[in-house]
């Protein structure tokens, strides 16, 4: 058992690219689900259209990087309107089914052979991150403490990512303290009461959906840039489910809980995954476990964890039980 490698990769996972991406996606879900009570199961699609919007603009049409970011943002907002207009007047589970269907539509279109000249089929798109890394202020080398260090490219991506997380967390904090945020929470608690006070509930829900989508799409940009490529299957529905697990693990309707949740989720996932695979190769586990199927075990644990959390501690680590939007409407 190589405990040293396990330790290093686990610590790195706590601030790594996955944590950043999932934290941003989870902050978006927290705005939608935690504060507004909207069950958006299509967050992967929001990240997907943003990442592809940027990647396709730059890689397929050879347009500038910043225009790509703008197009990615615009695509996210359009998607939010397309999803929101038919479903926000309906009950929570309808929104859930429609958003999950939309996410699959987006993924299938991205990976289709028909549109592969634009989206690149199942291989996705590469060669669009040059302008982003040209802005890298770090000179070549590694940055970090001892073995826990990253090269200049990863450091640059992580710096941008954590700055974005800090900004969005600040924004969420201020918004939720504002009258706008209080209306949002009131909608989560009792939509009809808010409507009787003369507020346009539909409009508030739509704003929450758009805002959550835009925060998530920042994660989509970083996911694409951090790997210097986009593939359709990165944005599968399981991405959304993991992001929900993160929100519920941290505790819904708390500003920092998605960030803590994301770090904890990845630390646990990486630690369990590495420990199990080390144990398999060291021959410590029954022969039922092999190198090939051991990867499935940690995702079993994700499912199990999600169930147990909701059954025994739906408020997560930091949440307040009274603030969890778990009543069907």
């Amino acid at each position, binding site marked *: 058992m190589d405990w040293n490698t396990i330790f290093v990769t686990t610590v790195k996972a706590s601030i790594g*690219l996955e944590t950043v991406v999932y934290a941003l996606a989870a902050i978006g879900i927290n705005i939608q689900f935690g504060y507004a009570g909207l069950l958006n199961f299509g967050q992967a699609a929001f990240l997907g259209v943003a990442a592809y919007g940027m990647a396709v603009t730059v890689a397929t049409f050879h347009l500038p990087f910043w225009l790509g970011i703008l197009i990615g943002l615009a695509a996210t907002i359009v998607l939010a309107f397309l999803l929101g207009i038919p479903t926000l007047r309906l009950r929570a589970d309808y929104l859930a*089914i429609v958003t999950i269907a939309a996410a699959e539509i987006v993924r299938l279109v991205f990976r289709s052979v028909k549109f592969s000249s634009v989206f690149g089929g*199942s291989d996705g798109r590469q060669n669009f991150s040059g302008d982003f890394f040209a802005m890298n202020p770090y000179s070549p080398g590694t940055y970090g403490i001892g073995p826990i260090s990253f090269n200049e490219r990863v450091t640059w991506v992580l710096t941008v990512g954590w700055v974005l997380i800090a900004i969005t967390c600040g924004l969420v904090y201020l918004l939720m303290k504002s009258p706008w945020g209080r209306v949002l929470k009131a909608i989560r608690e009792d939509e009809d009461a808010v409507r009787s006070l003369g507020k346009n509930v539909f409009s508030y829900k739509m704003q929450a959906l758009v805002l959550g989508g835009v925060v998530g799409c920042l994660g989509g940009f970083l996911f694409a840039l951090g790997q210097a490529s986009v593939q359709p*299957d990165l944005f*599968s529905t399981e991405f959304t489910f993991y992001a929900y697990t993160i929100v519920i693990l941290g505790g819904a309707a708390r500003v920092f809980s998605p960030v803590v949740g994301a770090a904890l989720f990845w630390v646990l996932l990486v630690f369990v995954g590495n420990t199990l695979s080390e144990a398999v190769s060291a021959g410590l586990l029954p022969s039922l476990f092999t190198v090939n199927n051991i990867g499935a075990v940690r995702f079993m644990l*994700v*499912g199990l964890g*999600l*169930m147990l959390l*909701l059954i025994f501690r739906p408020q997560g680590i930091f949440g307040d039980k009274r603030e969890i939007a778990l009543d069907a409407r």
Partner: protein
Amino acid sequence: MRRAVIAFTAFLGGLVFLLSSPAWADGEALKGTLQNQGQPVNGVKISVAGEDGNPVGDATTGADGKWEVPVPKAGKYKVTLDQSTLPKDVGLKFQNRATLDVQVYEGSERNVLFALAPAGKQGEGAAQTSDSSSFWDRVAQLTFEGFNLGLIIALAAMGLSLVFGTTGLTNFAHGELLTFGAMCAYFFNVVIGLPLIVAAVISVVIGGAFGYSQDRFFWGVLRRRGSSLVAMMIISIGLALFLRYVFLFFFGGEGASFADYNAQPGIQVGPISAAPKNFIAMGIELAVLIVVGLALLKTRVGKAARAVADNPALAASSGINVDGVIRIIWTVGGAVASLAGVMLGLSQNVSYQMGFQILLLVFAGVTLGGLGTAFGALVGSIVVGLFIQLSTVVVPTELKTVGALLVLILVMLFRPQGILGRRERIG
């Protein structure tokens, strides 16, 4: 230090690889078994080319008549059988079908069937190709396939819709009931070696037991604890994830087919050509749906189930044992879903993601028909199945699911209560 960086990059790459669903990352292939009157035909050359005509690879059938050509990714391929390599006494059944256009789906191996016949006995039926008749032939064929898919969806939708109607649970783990059924049948058929029909019966029984125990030991307990519906919906997602990866753990990421009825030569009924197993499967599906439908209409339990679905409180006050009815619905729903899984495994492949992949179509069928209604689910599912297959006349086959999901969204926009649903259900 550099090694650490490389290790970390490799690690990140590995994570991404894991996240992007292992089954899709590999395994697309074309394969088949060449048989003439039940005997394998070996030494036949089969070549595969991409849509643009570039060769992808070729293979020669082995002693068991099997051949396989891995392809780089999902898409359309042209498969050509080299007729000069066929034995003298064997010929293609349809001379104009030496080259087939086939679609390979993500992560699945596609079976390609070349129908062979003793030389001199080839049919001339398919030889004439006039454009108008081939279009209507295609429509008829697709309608048939649409019914086939629609009936499978309907079997799955019945349980999902009744569970929703009686308990309000939007069960995202319902697809895993299908996978469970298919896996059970696979276990008894391939691992133990029982005939598929026996294996299917056992799997339906186990599926019913699985449904029963899910309600007895899990959902029923949660209902009594007073868990809210949204919490239960997310719990069902957790359960779905858990079960899916349990299936992956024991079954592996590759798709596999049952041991029986694999490469059945197609038979021609009017304009429709299909393997006999498809006709029999459809017959069984129809029979089961009719029996369940009649049971809902005529029996005491069925009437009670519809009463509970309509208004649980009122049903309870008129003396119906609501919990008992719900348990029966879960049992029957689990059994029928198992059957749907076996049928799905028979017409496609058994894989750990099969249930999840069809779940959205089941949701589409259920919402189209009206959430919570049993017969609405039936009608909606068949419409969805037909729509998916018939849409391939105009849209590429790989995007046929997209059409169905778009319809789901449009239904939400214009008639959220579905075809047979009532307004008050949508809240």
